[in-house]
């Protein structure tokens, strides 16, 4: 028997999941960064206060890194929390190192320094594949984390962090390269790009020469980011587009001007398709007839800090659905027919495009839009309502709305209609999982199933985390690794 409280709980959790998947605390088209952070902060407090047992489990969902860091900070701040350490460790191991270091910095600033926190910092640092490399690349952050967790790094690392010029030479190659880079211009090419850049400026090395020689050391994202700038200096960074996540490729494609897109059409479309095929994996071609309504109205520009993000998500979904579906049609809201040339402009006549989509008689309609239906306002909701009530009461055609933008006033992503499930989306790769989650949003399955789903996911992640931990312990042979020991409290 479902009670009213159960329904509210189910709704709250889905609302939180949507928020935690989409919002990054950055400025959006319709709201400022401050509003986003305030709204999101309230939501976290609300969920943590009302559902303390479920709050940690939400880490197991595909919440984005900003929210994962927020959840972890809130959990560690809480007194007497326990039992979620493995889940936290699992999530931290999947976050990008700069973000984890930023989280540690935040814990330090806020004075969160309980035993649990120290153990989590210690374990995460011990699990880094090459801590010396981290110490060079994120020097200040590593130093601050080590200090905060009361650790005493063994061997050279402690000296490197706290008395770098106390040694005449280092045995670890990357530390030695860092020492030599201070006076030897050839040594700096063994350092990570961000560190080497500073040394290059100090030695007055020209940009073209520097880029030419540092090129092999660039990371995947640095290659992509520098592709345009380096080409002006005649250096090719050989960015491998197809290997990147789908939305990242889409963002890159949309950042190019129309002429470049036309010139490099085969390459760009190839990269998008390859990335989509990889994301689709074994599910490719299994989804039957799918029609997508994709929003490329002016609001899909996002904001100066999230440039064209909603449009990039739509473009990525277009290619992923193309790979997943047997028969696929993508309808852009502006009426454009060439997805590669998509640009954010014009109003959002979503209602009419949904009618167009339903006319193609698909098995599934996927709407990717920020939900600001304005030409005319509310037509999409009416079309979906009448469709469900009058034309398709059996629900033969599935309709899912994916929304990449968090709406601060509703503490949720903006919905089109109560008849249609709306879920937040950030990375196109999550699309299959989100369509699964949309099941809960439709209200046909209850809170018991949702809890079971969450706990099941968390258990799977827990086992993964445990397995990794064991592997780590087996791997760590004494003397071979930089070991970390807790500093004795005097």
């Amino acid at each position, binding site marked *: 028997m479902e009670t009213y409280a159960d329904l509210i709980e189910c709704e709250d959790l889905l609302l939180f999941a949507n928020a935690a998947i989409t919002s990054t605390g950055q400025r959006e*088209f*319709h709201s400022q960064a401050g509003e986003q952070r305030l709204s999101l902060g309230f939501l976290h407090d609300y969920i943590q206060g009302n559902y303390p047992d479920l709050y940690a489990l939400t880490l197991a969902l595909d919440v984005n890194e900003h929210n994962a860091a927020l959840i972890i900070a809130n959990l560690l701040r809480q007194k007497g929390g326990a039992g979620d350490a493995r889940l936290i460790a699992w999530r931290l191991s999947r976050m990008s190192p700069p973000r984890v270091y930023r989280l540690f910095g935040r814990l330090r600033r806020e004075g969160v320094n309980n035993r649990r926190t120290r153990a989590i910092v210690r374990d995460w640092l011990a699990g880094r594949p090459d801590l010396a490399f981290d110490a060079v690349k994120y020097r200040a952050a590593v130093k601050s984390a080590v200090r905060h967790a009361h650790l005493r790094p063994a061997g050279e690392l402690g000296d490197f962090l706290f008395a770098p010029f106390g040694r005449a030479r280092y045995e670890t190659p990357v530390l030695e390269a860092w020492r030599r880079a201070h006076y030897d211009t050839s040594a700096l090419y063994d350092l990570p790009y961000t560190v080497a850049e500073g040394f290059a400026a100090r030695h007055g090395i020209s940009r073209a020469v520097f880029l030419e020689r540092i090129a092999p050391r660039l990371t995947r994202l640095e290659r992509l980011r520098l592709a345009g700038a380096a080409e002006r200096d005649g250096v090719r960074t050989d960015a491998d587009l197809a290997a990147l996540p789908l939305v990242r490729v889409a963002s890159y494609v949309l950042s190019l001007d129309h002429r470049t897109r036309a010139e490099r059409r085969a390459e760009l479309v190839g990269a998008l398709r390859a990335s989509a095929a990889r994301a689709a994996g074994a599910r490719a071609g299994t989804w039957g007839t799918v029609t997508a309504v994709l929003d490329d*109205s*002016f*609001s899909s520009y996002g904001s100066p800090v999230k440039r064209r993000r909603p449009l990039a998500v739509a473009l990525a979904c277009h290619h992923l659905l193309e790979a997943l579906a047997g028969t696929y049609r993508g309808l852009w809201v*502006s009426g454009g027919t060439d997805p590669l040339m998509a640009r954010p*402009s*014009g*109003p*959002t006549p979503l*209602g*009419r495009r949904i*009618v167009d989509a*339903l*006319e193609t008689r698909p098995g599934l309609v996927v709407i990717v839009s920020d939900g600001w239906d*304005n*030409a*005319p*306002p*509310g*037509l999409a*909701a*009416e*079309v979906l*309502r*009448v*469709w469900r*009530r*009058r*034309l398709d009461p059996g629900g033969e055609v599935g309709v899912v709305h994916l929304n990449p933008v968090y709406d601060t006033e509703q503490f949720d992503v903006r919905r089109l209609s109560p008849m249609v499930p709306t879920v937040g989306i950030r990375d196109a790769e999550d699309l299959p999982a989100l369509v699964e989650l949309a099941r809960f949003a439709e209200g046909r399955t209850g809170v018991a199933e949702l809890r079971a789903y969450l706990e099941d996911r968390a258990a799977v992640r827990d086992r993964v985390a445990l397995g990794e931990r064991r592997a780590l312990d087996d791997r760590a042979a004494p003397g071979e690794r930089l070991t970390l020991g807790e500093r004795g409290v005097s």
Partner: protein
Amino acid sequence: MIDLDGLETRPAQTWGALRLVPLVRREPIVDLRLHAKVYGDEPSVVFLPDRTVYTAYVPHAFVASWTGDGGPAAAYGTQLGQPLRRVPVRLRRRMARRADRNRLRFLPLHLAVEGFLALHFGGPEIAWEEWSRRAVAHGLSPRAEDAYTGAQVRGLDDALKVFEIHPGQCGLLLYAADAPAGAFVVPHPEDYRALHPTLVRDLYGELVYEYAMLHPARDFPAVIDDAAVSSLADLRAEADRHEREWAGFHDSVMAAGLLRAPERVEEIYRMGRFTLSRFLPSFERKGDNHIGETITDEEGRLAYLKTFRLSEAQSRRGHLLSVLAAHGWSLPEAAAALGIDVAALGMRLERAGFGHLLRQDVLDGYRKAVSGGGRRTRRGGGTSPPA
């Protein structure tokens, strides 16, 4: 009467208290183009041909370029090989001034505001005894009115920023709490795209400022009657019907006051087949009064429009001046036309800010008459016992 022929009304977008209604032109006008010339933040002083001086914050001027033969014109500053010459000018001559052959510089909205300020600016034509010597010699000078810039209207900057411009859009009607606040129409969609942000630097009346602060506007959501729908084609027809109904409702009800506004039209400048003119409303009380300026072609079709909504006090002032001027500045006749006695008219003039036009002793007399006469007031100021 403003004729919006050729411009189609599209669904409105709302933000806070503001409703923005886009107007789309099927066929853009190519032989007249507008371009904004941004001035600094300093106040501008404009010398007018009748030797009066107009001082205001003028954020920008518009430059209209046209071709005599109907061929396409390019917006000034965007032609190849003709860089924009930047001349820091603070003193300007005339509201509308020819900048070159086939190019006219004019100060948008200030053209219309100046027309309103200059209304019966000369003062009494007949030196009736009630008028002060200064009123007879110098007219209404100095005459001042206040307005708010768009940046002060709450939410206008955000509303313009998040507004999604329609393809082919050539105009925008702005409503604050569903009262028409201003209209803006340009000849070409590209001009509109360029000039859309300038709306935040324009003038807005007091009423717009207050309504934007106090009364939030709601979307008119589309409603479809599900009994009438049995197929997708019906659904599409219903959507079309809704759009037509909205356009009809907007043009005949929401914008009616604005479109009916022009009463007195004054021609300012002829450029080829186009005419720049400004208009004043009828100063009807309890109605919305808009002043504005238009550019129309030889058949009267609208190429450019910009309006300013007068506040209640401003329309009252306009009304008083019009009535006075219509009766040769004779107070008894004007009072009779308004259906009040002369003393009440005198007090009304004073409340409207025109007290300095009347002789002080005359005004004092009116004040006494209205407050019940001086007989009951003793020299010491105390009231006398009832007789």
